[in-house]
């Protein structure tokens, strides 16, 4: 009976079971362990939806048509996808494979043609596939999140002490170190990566959600699920990952360094700063324009004080709406065939390396700077350079308090913290410029 043969239980594959369990695990981490819930709840839920057998919520019209593989539909698709198949020919698993492979490698025009044909035969895009295409495929989703983040960011501490920008630069070693790590795994023959994949994985070291999603959507869309999940997971784990590294690289005396109160920053400086950043981007790295442009736009709306209502919307209604769809869209890439392979393990492994290297380089950079500047910097604020706003800054503060109960580093750590956001956006721009 159709209902039974069409039921999930009848059709479910082991891979889907595993992925649904992984989705439930993400929900558990998000809800119970508070792992970046704003993203991991939608991602986890989207992952479950994407793996409901027969529903095809994450598939395009053509993929759904190929899944059900009616001979007449295949015949209609054969010429477009350039697969040797005559009407009436038996639909063997090999034939279905051939079609799916052809579709996977097809270019833009072929894909739209195939989807149009599938639509003619009554198949439609899955809900999550539409979300993905509109929100991530167009790259607009991560950019709007970035705009909202800009509208929530206060550059005051950075403006009070601009040299902390260098800490945000040093921490980006996490990104490129991870690329090297991926290349190493490839060299040792443990895993296979292309340079595009390696770069996309490296961006996890940016410790910045929207940047990771943006870069991987440009360089390696098939890895976006694994990359986003590990980026957000490790951002949540920052309080566990960073302290040991910070302590290992600093002496008790260094950690106890007190930093002088930050100077007050005028409203005017805060208004002009995003424009300065924008101009610098325009002059030196056009490829970072979408990311940093929207970031600066959000920040300008926040600081200029004459568009309160737009700033409020960018920080609330708009970013929330986009977050819901972005999360579900990322979840739609948590599909068995793409997620359950060695690369994902490699990505998870490399991700933690990325955070570690970034943290270490931030701390070391701070120590290096102390060799040059007159009034010393507490190296603990260097680790905040990985961004992971505001978690990393809180970690610096906490570790600082352990070393000296009267030493409040939070404000000082916010500087490198937001600098890290700019730093990884710049790194993203360079990667897209050189590889995209």
């Amino acid at each position, binding site marked *: 009976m159709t209902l039974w043969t069409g039921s999930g239980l009848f059709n479910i594959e082991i891979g889907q079971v595993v992925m649904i369990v992984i989705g439930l695990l993400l929900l558990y981490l998000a809800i119970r362990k508070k792992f970046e819930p704003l993203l991991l709840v939608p991602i986890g839920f989207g992952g479950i939806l994407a793996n409901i057998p027969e529903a095809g919520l994450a598939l395009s019209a053509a993929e759904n048509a190929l899944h059900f593989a009616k001979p007449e539909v295949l015949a209609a698709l054969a010429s477009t996808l350039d697969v040797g198949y005559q009407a009436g020919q038996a639909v063997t698993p090999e034939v279905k494979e051939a079609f799916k492979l052809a579709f996977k490698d097809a270019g833009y025009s072929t894909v739209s043609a195939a989807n149009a044909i599938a639509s003619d035969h009554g198949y439609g895009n899955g809900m999550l596939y539409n979300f993905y295409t509109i929100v991530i495929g167009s790259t607009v989703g991560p950019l709007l999140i970035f705009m909202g983040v800009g509208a929530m960011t206060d550059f005051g501490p950075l*403006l009070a002490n601009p040299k902390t920008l260098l800490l945000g*630069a040093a921490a*980006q*070693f996490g990104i*490129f170190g991870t690329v090297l790590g991926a290349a190493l795994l490839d*060299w040792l023959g443990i895993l296979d990566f292309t340079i595009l994949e390696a770069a996309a994985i490296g961006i996890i070291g940016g410790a910045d959600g929207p940047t990771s999603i943006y870069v991987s959507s440009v360089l390696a869309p098939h890895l976006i699920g694994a990359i986003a999940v590990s980026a957000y997971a490790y951002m949540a784990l920052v309080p566990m990952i960073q302290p040991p590294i910070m302590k290992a690289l600093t002496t008790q005396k260094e950690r106890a360094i007190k930093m002088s109160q930050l100077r007050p920053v005028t409203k005017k*400086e805060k208004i002009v700063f995003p424009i300065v950043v924008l101009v610098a981007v325009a002059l030196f790295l056009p490829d970072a324009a979408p990311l940093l442009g929207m970031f600066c736009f959000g920040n300008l709306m926040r600081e200029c004080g004459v568009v309160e209502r737009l700033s409020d919307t960018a920080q609330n209604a708009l970013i929330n709406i986009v977050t819901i769809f972005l999360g579900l869209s990322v979840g739609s890439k948590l599909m068995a065939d793409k997620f359950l392979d060695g690369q994902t393990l490699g990505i998870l492994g490399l991700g933690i390396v990325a955070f570690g290297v970034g943290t270490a380089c931030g701390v070391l950079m701070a120590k290096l700077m102390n060799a040059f500047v007159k009034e010393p910097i507490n190296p603990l604020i260097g680790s905040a350079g990985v961004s992971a706003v505001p978690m990393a800054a809180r970690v610096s503060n906490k570790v600082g308090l352990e070393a000296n109960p009267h030493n409040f580093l939070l404000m000082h750590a*916010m500087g490198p913290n*937001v*600098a890290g956001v700019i730093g990884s956006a710049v790194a993203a721009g360079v990667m897209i410029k050189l590889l995209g």
Partner: protein
Amino acid sequence: MNELMSQAIDLMVAGMGFVFAFLIILVFATLLMSKLVLRFGPAEPEPATPARNSRAKPSAPSPVDPDTAEAIKKAIAQYRSRHKK
């Protein structure tokens, strides 16, 4: 050493070089900007507000900043207590 390896190294050199170059420029641009602004502009200092720049803050869609909200709550609590007796 295979090709991917060398590509990765090139990427690292170019990337970190550029990131540092860009942010160093930004340091000087910012210092200059602040100097100019503070020179030609009535100085109306205003402390940096840390409370607001958590990006994950579950701020409901209301323009009221945390401590005002805080105050409102207290005010209400107080009102109620007064209201009861």
